[in-house]
């Protein structure tokens, strides 16, 4: 069996688990089951779910925030200030949510089966000029942040500004935005770190959730051995991803030092204030909207919180 896999951009920390998965699957099946990973050749990233639904390719990666209406249930994982502290917790909550029947039904509309997540760290912001470490200073700040994180910033008076990821560096340079919210690897690859004077280390406003899915029919058409090889490789692929990203995060501090970027710590009471103003109303709004569509919103949110506390008591 040969699968086509649609991802985008270039090979990077964000795609390492897919690369690893392909390697493991091929190894385990003695080359019987191979994956052909295409970086942008098969589809645009926002249309990867469409491609899966059509059956144009068998596996794909996408981010829930690209198109909230395509995958409303997963957006629970993109709510601001969920309280996820590290990548291991991000994996745990994502996979718990992916296993929920309502989520699987949501993705089944696209003929898609959730395979694994691509855990992303919190979207802390980099900024130019004076470091902003108090809520008052977020007022009128032009920030490149989309979706729930953007909403959170606007709740404290900041101005979320529409800029594509590739234009983020230009936008910072030109003063179109003062700050940019990204995961660390994106601050590195889109160059926003080079423009930055400071970076918030503990704002932790939230992150995006980017699952890897497979086409259901293709999955069912696999031989038992092939399916077994695929399923059994997920944990190993994720472990590889975490190790790889961990190394990148270790490098992060030295990058900050090298570029003279100040690490800004925000005080606990400022954070509490931010959560009160931004997190609670946005979450309540989300739960109300999703419940109106007949989705078990409260249940999904509780599942996230329960998984987090289980994860912490377990470790």
């Amino acid at each position, binding site marked *: 069996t040969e699968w*086509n896999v649609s991802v985008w951009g*270039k090979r990077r920390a964000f795609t390492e688990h897919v690369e690893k998965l392909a390697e493991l699957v091929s190894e385990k099946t003695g080359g019987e089951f191979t994956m052909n990973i*295409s970086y*942008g*050749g*098969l*589809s*645009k990233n*926002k*249309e990867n779910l*469409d*491609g899966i639904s*059509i*059956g*144009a390719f068998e596996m794909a990666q996408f981010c829930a925030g690209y198109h909230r209406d395509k995958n409303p249930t997963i957006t629970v994982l993109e709510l601001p200030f969920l309280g996820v502290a590290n990548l291991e917790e991000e994996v745990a909550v994502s996979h718990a949510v992916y296993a929920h029947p309502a989520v699987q039904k949501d993705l089944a509309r696209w003929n898609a089966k959730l395979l694994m997540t691509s855990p992303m760290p919190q979207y802390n912001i980099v900024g130019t000029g004076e470091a902003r470490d108090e809520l008052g200073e977020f007022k009128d700040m032009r920030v490149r942040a989309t979706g729930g994180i953007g909403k959170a910033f606007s709740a404290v008076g900041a101005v979320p500004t529409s*800029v*594509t990821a*590739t*234009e983020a560096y*230009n*936008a910072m*340079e*030109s*003063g*179109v935005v003062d700050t940019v919210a990204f995961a660390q690897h994106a601050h590195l690859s889109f160059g926003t770190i080079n423009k930055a004077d400071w970076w918030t280390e503990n704002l932790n406003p939230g992150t995006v959730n980017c699952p890897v899915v497979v086409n259901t029919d293709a999955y069912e058409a696999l031989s038992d051995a092939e399916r077994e090889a695929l399923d059994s490789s997920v944990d190993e692929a994720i472990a590889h991803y975490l190790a790889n990203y961990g190394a990148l995060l270790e490098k992060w501090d030295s990058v900050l030092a090298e570029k003279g970027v100040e690490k800004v710590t925000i005080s606990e009471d400022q954070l509490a204030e931010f959560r009160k103003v931004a997190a609670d109303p946005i979450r309540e709004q989300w739960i109300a909207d999703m419940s109106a569509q007949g989705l078990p919103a409260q249940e999904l949110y509780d599942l996230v919180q329960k998984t987090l506390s289980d994860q912490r008591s377990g470790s």
Partner: protein
Amino acid sequence: MEPIEIGLWVSGLLLATVLLGMRVAFAAGLAGLVGLVWIFWAKFGYDPERFTKALTIAVKTAGQVPHSKVSSQALSLIPTFILIGYLAYYAGLTKALFEAAKRWLAWVPGGLAVSTVFATAGFAAVSGASVATSAVFARIAIPEMLKIGYDKRFAAGVVAAGGTLASLIPPSAILVIYAIIVEQDVGKLLLAGFIPGAFSAVVYGLLIIGMAMTIKGFGPAVTGFTWRERLVSLPPALPILFVVATIILFVYNPFGGDAWGTPTEGGAIGAFVVFLMALYRGMRWAELKDALLETAKLSVMIFTIIWGVLIYVRFLGFAELPAAFSDWITSLTLSPMLILICILLAYAVLGMFMDAIGMLLLTLPVVYPAVMALNGGEYVSAAESTFGMSGPMCAIWFGILVVKMAEFCLITPPIGLNCFVVAGVRDDLTVQDVFKGVTPFFIADGITIALLVAFPSIVLWLPSLA
């Protein structure tokens, strides 16, 4: 059959239908669709019962492309650039520019022809399309040159060649298209066009001066303009400077401060300035409607080619043809510079028969990755690269080179659209006359291209600042 073989067959089909006169956009779309059906059916082992399934997947895959590919912020520069050009007519900018160029520059040997070249270069700063620029100046500049005794063929040649400057000097629709296909920074590419465009104009100017000084009976210099006359000619041409400054400042602030915004915004604000100017000059709804309709027509022609070709490119993605071609190119034992020159020569040949936009759209998806691989890959650093420039810089350099080649093709026989247009405007000129008159400019363009290849910093200096 291997996907790559399917890719080659389908590319052959595309070439045949284009040569036989099918509209390029639809020929590309059809080739892409046929290719996708073939690829998916091959995947099903040509099982007759699963042909419908393969067809369905292919049609649905192709059916995503039009909406998916045209809803892009960067592509919005194309219609705005086209609109700027149309509005510029109504703003009376063409005549004002020619008048100013004449009063300031016509005193040199071959002065009126030199003035024409620099007026077209100035107009290039509000016009994104070469052919339109030639058409306009054929009306304004040729009669004046004939009046003082220029050879009519040469006068026509000057206008045809001058028009090609419009696609290098921003705004340029074709540079935006290049940037989109190869996924590079539009702003930097537009900046990169400035100096090579101005450089081409200077080479044209020097060539004319040289000819004027050596050929007997060449058009005389025009002298006698007072400084007062010169100064009053400037204000009507000022909006051009304003548009140029706006576009530059939105991409890069030369004074060291922040740029004013993004290129997309810069293009639209530039159009707005010309729009106000045109209103001030008396444009009314009827003329605006004409300008909008013409803009819509030219835009939809370009966008149809874009999505048509991108259906073909989507198929190429499944066929893995671009990767195979770049593997082949890099495996050649020839020197990389020689390969690059061969690629440029191939464009010169292809351009004899094809429209510039169609040519770039059809070839770049395969050629561009190969050139990047030749340089050492898309993310290579300058130090480790073949041509001594980083991946993104190589993309910009190659972009300017192919656009210059495409422009060169607008004045070469047998299909040289700029020459056709000039001949079309003037009843007293045949197409052969214009081709004859434009011949000296082949030399100028040859020199320009050789210098751009030999000294990439002419292209890369400005974008490397931004």
